[in-house]
């Protein structure tokens, strides 16, 4: 009995000692891969939505994959489970000497403000935001590149679709009322809605645009509730600007047999009611930011917008602005394909006018 016990104990000790050894041997593989440019390391930190959000995080990851393939960079991803993961996740990549650390989303502004100060020699990029202090006041950081979008331009195009359809009485229940469901009253959301409202009123001056906010970006039931109350008030086209929550509005429109408009990504697959989607090409922005840090090249049709112009040699740039003109925002025709010819004409005309600078959609909801 005794012998057996000791034998088991000895076996245990041997195993405990052996595991690290085997582990050390097992992990010598790695590295390699095709490189076309300077191999830089890029870390992507998602917000709490995670990679499968079918929206921002997913699009940013797509941009990273494209950069890995086209530019030969090395990309790694950390998904944040809670907001308290932002600082450690950003710090992880920065402390490991990554050349560029990308924060996906408005939500990470405070964390980025802190970590970018700790690592002044690391490049950071943030989608839809800029670094702030703990009191949410913007703080300038030479090593942070903000990736902003003119959402109002994409919003204006889909607003034109809704407005012209309504004027032509080609919507399911021609009532002269359309609506938008926003996730929260924050600048990126309101820019979409402002453009939508502005363009719809331009196409059909008598139109009524209802606007509601769910204060949520994840729970579909909240957005379907708001959408249903808007349908009750006569709306027959709903524009969702609420991420995962907004998918509930799209589905509610499908159940009520009215039209809906998707946001950020091409959402035609979410519900048959989605006629068009307003696109915000986070993947393009991510790719362009990586390319800038790698070889100093600015996005196509780049125009200086921030206070300081970008300096390619030091890779210092505070802001990239993506708009219709440089292809950073746009629209996709989904389940109303093709669009009626006068709708298509109106959209194309407005698109050209915005690109030419003849029309400027507003940034704030009126």
């Amino acid at each position: 009995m005794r012998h057996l016990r000791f034998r088991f104990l000895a076996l245990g000790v041997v195993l405990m000692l052996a595991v690290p050894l085997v582990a050390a041997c097992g992990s010598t593989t790695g590295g390699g891969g095709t490189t076309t440019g300077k191999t830089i390391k890029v870390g992507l930190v998602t917000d709490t939505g995670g990679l499968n959000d079918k929206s921002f995080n997913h699009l940013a990851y797509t941009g990273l994959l494209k950069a890995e393939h086209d530019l030969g960079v090395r990309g790694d991803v950390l998904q944040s489970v809670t907001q308290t993961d932002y600082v450690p996740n950003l710090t992880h990549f920065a402390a490991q000497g990554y050349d560029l650390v990308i924060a996906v989303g408005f939500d990470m502004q405070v964390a980025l403000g802190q970590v970018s100060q700790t690592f002044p020699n690391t490049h950071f990029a943030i989608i839809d935001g800029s670094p702030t202090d703990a009191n949410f006041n913007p703080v300038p950081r030479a090593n942070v590149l903000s990736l902003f979008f003119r959402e109002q331009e994409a919003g204006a195009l889909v607003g034109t679709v809704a407005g012209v359809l309504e004027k032509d009485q080609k919507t399911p229940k021609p009532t002269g009322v359309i609506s938008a469901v926003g996730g929260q009253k924050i600048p990126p959301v309101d820019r979409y809605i402002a453009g939508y409202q502005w363009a719809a009123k331009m196409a059909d001056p008598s139109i009524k645009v209802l606007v509601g906010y769910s204060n949520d970006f994840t729970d579909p039931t909240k957005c379907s509730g708001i959408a249903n109350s808007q349908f009750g008030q006569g709306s027959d086209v709903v524009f969702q600007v609420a991420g995962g929550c907004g998918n509930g509005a799209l589905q509610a429109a499908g159940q009520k047999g009215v039209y809906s408009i998707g946001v950020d990504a091409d959402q035609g697959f979410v519900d048959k009611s989605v006629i068009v989607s307003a696109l915000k090409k986070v993947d393009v922005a991510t790719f362009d930011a990586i390319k800038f840090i790698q070889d100093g090249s600015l996005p196509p049709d780049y125009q200086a917008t921030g206070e300081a112009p970008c300096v390619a040699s030091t890779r210092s740039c505070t802001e990239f602005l993506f708009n219709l003109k440089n292809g950073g925002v746009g629209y996709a025709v989904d389940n109303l394909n093709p669009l009626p010819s006068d709708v298509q004409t109106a959209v194309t005309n407005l698109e050209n006018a915005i690109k030419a600078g003849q029309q400027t959609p507003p940034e704030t909801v009126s």
Partner: protein
Amino acid sequence: MATPSAPTTERTASADTPTPLSRVIAYLRPMGTPLGSVLFAFVVGAIVVVATRGNALLAYESLACGGFGIFCQNGENTALQLSNTLVFTTPLILTGLAVAVAFRAGLFNIGAEGQLVMGAIAAAVVGIKLGTWPALILLPSVLIAGTLAGAAYGGLAGVLKAVTGAHEVVTTIMLNYVALWASRYLIIGGPLQAPGAFNASPPVAAGAQLPRLVPLNNNLLFGLPQSVFTAYTGIFVSLFGAAIYFFIMRRTALGYEITAVGQSQRAARYAGISVRRTIVVTMLISGAFAGLAGAVVLSGLSHSLVDTYFQDTTGFDAIAVSLLGQNTAIGVVLAAILFGALHAGGQVMEADAQISHNLVFVLEALVLFSLAANFLRTFKFRLPAFGRSPTQPAELEAQDVVVGAADEPG
């Protein structure tokens, strides 16, 4: 608890002459079940990784790297990893104690998360609204406010159980949602929302913040700017909480009453213990620990009330922590360190081994599963026993369950 283990010691002593080794083994024996379940979790976890075409060795290696800064392949900084582990461990100790004290009384407090949120809310309100108070008064007030809010919230479930017999599992689960949505209301369009923020309160005053272990500046420490080490003095609050728990359970009549009610409410009543009162007091203490956890994290780490609690699992991981720690103070601390290390390690594993951090939740669930199913006990009889007689009758083992099924009141 003492009665069934007494014959074991006698028999061991008479059957074998005590050697130093057998004494050590006998001392370590209570750790058999927890260690066995952790081992079980890691073995099954490895199978999961391999089945999904991952490298299990690399996964565990990077997990160890992230948790304890050992076996690092990509030059991770050991001190930074230990600091991250400490950050995750700090609230887990307190919520673990919260669940443990309830378990001791035969109560299943699933509401540690809600009590934690209430503690965080109260701490934020005090830290923001009374921000002009001197730090010497403000910091304790913040922590006490969190403790009291958590206690009140836990006590609510206790009163419901004692007065109406409403099952604490149901009430605490439901109260979680009330707390979660209350926190969200307060910071999104509610009275605590900071100007310029879309889902956060302003930070609490500097005097309301638990100090960091290293000062917040960019001087180099272990080769990194000091400000990356987010570990804070909350760990001492947590360890103090563990000491208080130990004292209550081992040195006070209250601790005896809690244990007595947990083992048999009927026997406790015959012994003159007020079962109702004990249930309420237990839930008050349980909520106090969880509320303190919320206050400590708010005061030492997040500083603002942020919309994090819907994803936060501290209050639920606590169930596994207390079970793994066998509801003892030292056990809870050790289990919290393990789970804290797993959480910190999940990040490194995801970055280095390209294996989702969700494996950490799988491991936690497997630990919980194997402890809850208790099947390692039955399995143990087939293995040569360490430090006890193999002929020990099964019923002695069966009585050794710490989390006993409590009698229903009535």
